[in-house]
């Protein structure tokens, strides 16, 4: 098995790993880096449980080869809070009961962070619902997820903790 080197910054930590060229980014993150907060829920890019940020844009990491992330910055759910300081979306999912089994939650939070609030800090309910269309949740019926995103938007939280440093 031949390997190639990838250099990726994961949640601000620079890494270099020798990997199989066909390794998917989700498996790189989970099995090589050891960050298991991003999940796998399908094999057809439908569920969004694997959603991470790739250079600040949301990406379904089951649909990206790890080598395609070479040189990129990856943010996973583990990078959304620092030292117990939760991201406003994490706080809002908690306070609004936006999760049940929690399996879809990391993907939902990253999707909401990147594609929704980063682009549109004050989305309507309809915009939130369409923004989350690519992320499936079987537990919540989405009602409280929508409320959580609305609350996070009201609390002004669009970006990961690392980027919010120095922001009051």
């Amino acid at each position, binding site marked *: *098995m031949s390997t190639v080197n990838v250099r990726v910054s994961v949640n601000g930590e620079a890494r270099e790993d020798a990997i*199989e060229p*066909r*390794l998917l980014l989700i*498996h790189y993150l*989970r*099995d090589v880096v050891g*960050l*298991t*907060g*991003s*999940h*796998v*829920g*399908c*094999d*057809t890019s*439908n*569920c969004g*449980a694997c959603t991470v940020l790739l250079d600040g844009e949301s990406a379904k990491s089951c649909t990206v080869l790890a080598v395609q992330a070479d040189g990129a910055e990856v943010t*996973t*759910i*583990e990078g*959304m*809070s620092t030292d117990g300081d*939760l991201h406003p979306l*994490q706080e809002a*999912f*908690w*306070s609004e*009961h936006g*999760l*049940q*089994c*929690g*399996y*879809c*939650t*990391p993907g939902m*939070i990253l999707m909401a962070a990147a594609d929704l609030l980063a682009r549109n800090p004050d989305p309507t*309910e309809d915009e*939130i*619902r*369409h923004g*989350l*269309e*690519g*992320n*499936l*949740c*079987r*537990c*919540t*019926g*989405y*009602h*409280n*997820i*929508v*409320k959580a995103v609305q609350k996070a938007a009201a609390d002004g939280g669009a970006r990961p903790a690392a980027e919010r440093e120095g922001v009051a």
Partner: protein
Amino acid sequence: MEATTTTGPNRHVGRAIRRKEDPRFITGTGRYVDDLTLTGMLHMAIVRSPEAHARITSIDTSEAAAHPGVVAVYVAEDLPFEGGIPMVWAPPGVEVNAPDHMPLKSGEVKCVGDPVAVVIGSDKYGVVDAAERVIVEYEPKPAVVDPEGALEDGSPLVWEGFGTNKTHEWAVSGGDIDAALAASDVVLEHRIVNHRTAGAAIETRGAFAEWNGHTITLTSSTQIPHITRFILSGVLGIAEDRLRVIAPDVGGGFGSKLNTYGEEALVCAVARKLGRPVKWIETRTENMAYTHHGRDQIAYVTMGARSDGRVTGVRARLICDLGAYFQILTAFIPELGFPVAGGCYAFDAIDLNFTGAFTNKFATDAIRGAGRPEMTHWVEVMMDRLARELDLDPAEVRRRSFIPKEKFPYETPLGIVYDSGDYEGTLDKMLAMLDVEGFRREQAELRAEGTYRGLGYSTYTEVCGLAPSRAVGPQGVGLQAAFYESATVRVHPTGSATVYSGASPHGQGHDTTFAQIAADRLGLDPEVVDVIHGDTNTGPFGKNTYGSRSLAVGGEAIAIAAERVQEKAKRICAALLEAAPDDIELADGTFRVLGQPDKSMAMAEIAGAAYIPPQELPTEIEPGLEETAFYDPENFVFPFGAHACVVEVDADTGKVRVVRWIAVDDCGRAVNPALIDGQVHGGVVHGIGQALYEQVVYDADGQLVTGSFVDYALPTAAELPSFETDRQETPSPVNSLGVKGVGEAGTIAASPAVLNAVVDALRPLGVDYIDMPLTPMRVWQAIEASTRGVAPAGDPPPDSEGGR
């Protein structure tokens, strides 16, 4: 009947506190089965049948075995088991044809996805590559896919040895159905299909086993660790105490993980054989094919009523497509609906007959609601048909037929005792939120503009709190098990507490609600009460989580154990404060002497004395502060509610959109209102999904058409509205908490409300019924057939892009 709690006011029960389990899930530190690794771990991939029905003529594993990193390739003969996965229902006096269901198939395959070989190796991708190199040759046989055709003479047989495709027939009857129908002013007949669906938890199944020379430890994404240990100990031939089963964080179940699966036996057998940890994680494609499906019933219903709308009798003949195998409850699941066959209505007579059919599909079994959504669907669809037939308001027909509030506890013609109910209460509350006149005005205005809006109701009751063992056990309905729940409550010397529960959650929030229940009885804050579950080596013997049972059975067990701890704490407190135990009260979180508020102790002080007894403590008080309780309920509990659905139908495309949903549910006393709402939201969407989008489809050759989330259309946020929910609290007299259950209620309520709403929308076009799922194609075909007299071309093909 009012339920009573024996401890003063609830301080924590009833509050919408945020969940204790959430910090790990929102930070990515939850631990699901695929998040676990062990040194030396191997991966397992499964070679599965692409054929629906075939004889295996040869299996060549040589190329796979030579693949780099492959440690072993096994076929059925290499992995002997004591037996297959058993079905645990043996109804007294009823013959059930139970087929073999071995973890690996030999001889013949009976459905797509049947496992025929396993490949074990060090690399996750490598075992998949190698599995593709296992060469299996099949000689196809005719596939049986239509359950009604399967029961006809001359049908090809799924299991030739039985000489029939009929699995069993089970009947139950109460009252004089013939007399009831004869005395009716109107008798309606209808065929109603409740199609096959999937649980589709976002986490697929997964199983991870290790063997240490003495004990197998199986970590599995399961709802039922204790039951799985019991079943697998038989399959594997290992004593139960030498098999430990752990349910870690589980990413949703919805019944699909209320089972013991062959793959769990396989990882255990392989780990034992190789002496190394073995992990198998199901792909979504495997999940769609070989995690059990649900529903799949055809109901032939005959219902009678008087001219004023009061119902008289109902007869239903149910054809149940059970697939090719029995999982642990397969044949029983349709019958689980029987206790609520009459819904909320005062029928004089009910007559049911269930006939199961083998087909070349995977097994059906429990999916959210398990038998009750099927039963409720046709009851509620028929109530709307009755209203139309009599030209009465559908809410009024329901109201006239409701079992009145003062009749509870109410015994149905089938001998089931509904514990408590106030159906008009939930209906009235729902109607007040809805504003029917406003809706009808708007409906008429929009129709004038060519927009079709419709309103559908569902007033349901369901049976949960599974289960009184005497009623459902071997000498009752015939399940070869008991259904109590257990709890151990331990107060630590520092005054924090741990609750061990036999229930095993997968999203329900047990860590929070169970802590609330215990905290009230211990005089503690829920913050310092931790809940441990899902490990057969920790805590007492449990019966796990399904059938909306965790609160009504598991919660009550915790309440009882915590009350016992409280009693002991009072005795210790009394001894130390020189008072009589009866004079100690727990109020505002402190134990104090009645009438002497200055003489009090906190639980932490009492616990300290329990573990390091001071001289003042009488020696007859045992050290320590923990108690265990097993609770077997005396009856089921019967939540109920009233839902309304408003849809908009695009008559040109057949597309249905749910624009409003009102749910007023009564699940007894509320422990955590936020979690109740969450269950209702998720449950309703599960029912909307079935009604509009979701369907497991096999083609005429038994090929699975919906093998992924591309074809199996789960509802997304974009298709749904926000929900308007409210509650009523009619306590259950069955348990001291007064609680019922709510995990399945929304699903049970939802599908008929959607169907009734669509029919209401399309009445001006002459459409009066459409079988689910109400995909654009089906709705459009129904409109075409009605308005142009063009008959829809049989069963429409599944929309290739899914139901949306």
